[in-house]
């Protein structure tokens, strides 16, 4: 029975993770921006949970970094010691619009990278001090190589991936697991503009199951679904002189 904090709890993947955590008996603290959606998730989890399980929540806009410290305090007040931190918030930027707006680009980098890095920094110190626990963040296969169709998102996720690599290197000696999750295409309301034909699309339930498995196996990095590891390997191997001519 672990104590788990979820940042961005109402995202489709985090929601499915929360259900699985509750099902296995964990206590959880949920953080999300939209109060109505958070209340919907909270009552859902209450129905699933046993009477002895704690489920707390806080509404917060995670782009306001100054709140992060306090959110950890609130979570600890509810749960006691924190075993696992899951960072799952994010947005899917409109690449074309970003190209026309520096402000939008920076906002997206803030949402998808900087705010996550702020949360992880505080969480890392907390877990390092207690000498156990796990930090999990949802990055993306998009962070493995910059592509013209979504490089703002890719840059943010790439930054997050690199940051976690360093964090892992530091915390490995302190008994803290750092797990980078790299989903490929996931069929969620966030991606509804895409035509979801083909076998590459995963359901959030599958991704959540993959995260829990990777977490319990002590993994460092997980591609979800598994085949993305090989797809991205190929994409990373294409030499830049050729890659720049492709439309990806």
């Amino acid at each position: 029975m672990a104590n788990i904090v979820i940042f961005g709890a109402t995202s489709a993947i985090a929601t499915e993770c929360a259900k699985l955590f509750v099902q296995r008996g964990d206590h959880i603290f949920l953080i999300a921006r939209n109060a109505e959606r958070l209340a919907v998730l909270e009552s859902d989890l209450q129905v699933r949970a046993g009477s002895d399980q704690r489920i707390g929540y806080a509404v917060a806009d995670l782009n306001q970094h100054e709140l992060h410290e306090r959110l950890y305090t609130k979570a600890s007040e509810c749960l006691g010691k924190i075993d696992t931190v899951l960072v799952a918030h994010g947005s899917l930027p409109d690449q074309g619009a970003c190209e026309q707006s520096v402000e939008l680009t920076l906002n997206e980098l803030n949402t998808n990278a900087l705010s996550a890095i702020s949360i992880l920094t505080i969480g890392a110190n907390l877990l390092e001090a207690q000498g156990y626990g796990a930090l999990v963040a949802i990055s993306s296969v998009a962070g493995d190589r910059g592509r013209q169709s979504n490089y703002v998102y890719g840059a943010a996720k790439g930054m997050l991936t690199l940051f976690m690599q360093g964090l892992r290197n530091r915390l490995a000696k302190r008994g803290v697991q750092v797990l980078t999750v790299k989903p490929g295409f996931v069929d969620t309301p966030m991606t509804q503009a895409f035509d979801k034909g083909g076998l590459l699309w995963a359901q959030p339930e599958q991704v959540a199951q993959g995260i829990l498995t990777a977490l319990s196996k002590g993994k460092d990095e997980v591609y979800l679904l598994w085949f993305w590891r090989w797809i991205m390997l190929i994409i990373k191997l294409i030499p830049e002189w050729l890659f720049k001519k492709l439309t990806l």
Partner: protein
Amino acid sequence: MYHSWNMNPKVGKQYAQYFSERYQELPKTNHSMIAYGNGRSYGDVCLNSGGTLILTKRLNHFIEFDPTSGLLKCESGVLLKDILDVVASRGWFLPVVPGTQFVTVGGAIANDVHGKNHHSHGSFGRHVASFELLRSDGERLVCSPASNREWFESTVGGMGLTGLITWAEIQLMPIQSTFMNTLSQRFESLNDYWKLMEQAKSKWMYNVAWIDCLAKGRELGRGVLTSAEHTVKPMRSAEHKKKNVSFPLTPPISLVNKVSLTLFNSMYFHLPRPTQVVPLHYLPYFFPLDSIYHWNRMYGKKGFFQYQCVIPPQHEKSAVEALLKTISDYGLGSFLAVLKSFSNIPTAGLMSFPREGATLALDFPNNGRKTLALFNELDQIVRQANGALYPAKDARMPIDMFAAGYPALYEFQRFIDPRFSSSFWRRVTR
């Protein structure tokens, strides 16, 4: 790319929009819309060629559960599986479950689905205490048998046409254990089936017969009747371990040709069966097919059809016999051939399929014109017996069959939302 479980009929381009928050409004579209639950229908009730599908997959939160009364409130995209996962171990069960637990609450209401216990519990809608119906003009109607009764009755079994169900309250039924007592009995002919079923109905809560659809002559209609009830004594091993359960039903992957089907059916029929009552967890009992994900793909690109009819009591014996004769002459059904009986328990819905009589359901690989010709022959028998076909299992019924089978059709039309339509609806009411 959104299709129904049997991949038929094929429809044109559809636009898909998530509806994932129960407070949100319906999408603004120029064309018609229909809810798409989990696409487990065998036809086009959940499809809308050239129109919008409202995806309820993420409208999947529980809202409230009272463990003392067994009243559960949840959003309409919640799967029956999720409900059973949460409530069965706490002593509650869905009073009606279809042959798969991968259907949504919205889909179960909109088709007023039935299980193997119609003779004791009727169909799904009877156990729905209330739901909210969202209309395209933004109105939200809380419907129950007591308030907005007409809307309640037209939406139960209303095939999604009256608007979008956002949440529902279901009255669960208490159980003592997650295990079932089951008994399988072989019968050598259709005559024996009627006798056996008659006895079983008064003794057991659940009854369903598998029929060897290739058997002919004196063996016509032979099969196996499986009866069950919830175990009364709590069992210690409450958890179901997926791997060590074996259900005698093997996936019919290679069974969809004549040779293998003949072999399999006769093997399955003669399989040695314990003559006494056997305990079985509820999952392998109710949902043996669910352990094989995507079994529908085994029929290949062309997909398959299901034909399910109900025949009123006065003609059931002769009509079922005629249907089975026609099918065994055709020579290619599938492993899935199921015969059950419906009681006279009234349905909550105006357009519900269940009604007193015998109901026969069979899968057929899609062999194009040959298969459709067989269905025309079967239709003829169903027509003459004043029977009806099940919209949830239909990809091809003629217009007159729908009108004849659903006499409330005219009354029902008043409740259809002007912005809602489906491929099925346009096909059967042209």
